[in-house]
């Protein structure tokens, strides 16, 4: 069973609803609302336009970079040789051997 305070509180809350019945809508309510809607729409529209421009620029840049990377370099053989081939080219039979003197010094030290 609900107590006395419960009923009094219910009555007070009902009276509160009557005491706060809300204002009568202003005559400018609708025009102001539409003005706000339009201003929000224009902000959204310009943001969307900026986003579109940014996306287009990003796509264009990607295409340009893709084309740039696909163009063959001026010295194509440089990257066609393997590591071993480059080493062999650098160490031809007439190249001076720099390891021998070191071997000699190691032998002397062991004596």
């Amino acid at each position, binding site marked *: 069973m609900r107590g006395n305070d419960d009923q009094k*509180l219910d009555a*007070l809350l009902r009276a509160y609803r009557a005491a706060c019945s809300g204002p009568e809508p202003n005559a400018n309510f609708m025009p102001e609302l539409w003005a706000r809607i339009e201003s929000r729409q224009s902000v959204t529209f310009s943001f969307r336009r900026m986003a579109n421009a940014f996306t287009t620029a990003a796509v264009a840049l990607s295409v340009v970079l893709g084309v740039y990377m696909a163009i063959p370099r001026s010295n194509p053989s440089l990257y066609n040789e393997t590591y071993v081939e480059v080493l062999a080219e650098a160490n031809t039979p007439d190249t001076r051997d720099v390891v021998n003197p070191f071997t000699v010094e190691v032998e002397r030290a062991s004596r």
Partner: protein
Amino acid sequence: MLVDFGLITRAQKGDSAAFNEIVLAYRKRILGTITRLIARPEDVEDVAQEVFLRLYFSLDQLRKEEVFEPWLYRLTVNAAYDYLRKQRRRQEYRMSDLSEQQVMLADAMAGGKAEQEDQHHKKVREAVDSLLGAVSEADRILLMLKEVEGLSLKELEKVYNVNENALKVRLFRARQRVLKAFGASGKKEEAG
């Protein structure tokens, strides 16, 4: 429902006249609810416009027309929360900015304005506002929707997207706290 489903469907498709009709049908009710939620008559229209603005931009997300009203209430509650949050910040800033003399002057002006209001309504409002001060802002809004706006538990379930039992528990606890404050204020009056 104050409007038929067809009108909502038309508004969802971008029909401005249909949207206008929806606003006109719900305007008074939303203004009343906001008045009770934020308790600042001068800002009620502004918050109500924010509610309808949000409605306009999110209407296409509404899947079932049957949930339109709870959904509109959710938008109203969210706008009221946002307003109260902003207001709290602004008030802190304002009060810290004013000199003692300015604060006293502002109080006197508010007092003068209040005198013009109906005394009985004023007393009721003050009593309820003070009682609802015993619960959190969220519980105050929940209690208001249930006890003053008269929303059913089923409707509140749709507004808050939580199950009925959780709402019952929250409502019971909030009401108990308000009842306790109510009892205490009654005893104080009797003693005085």
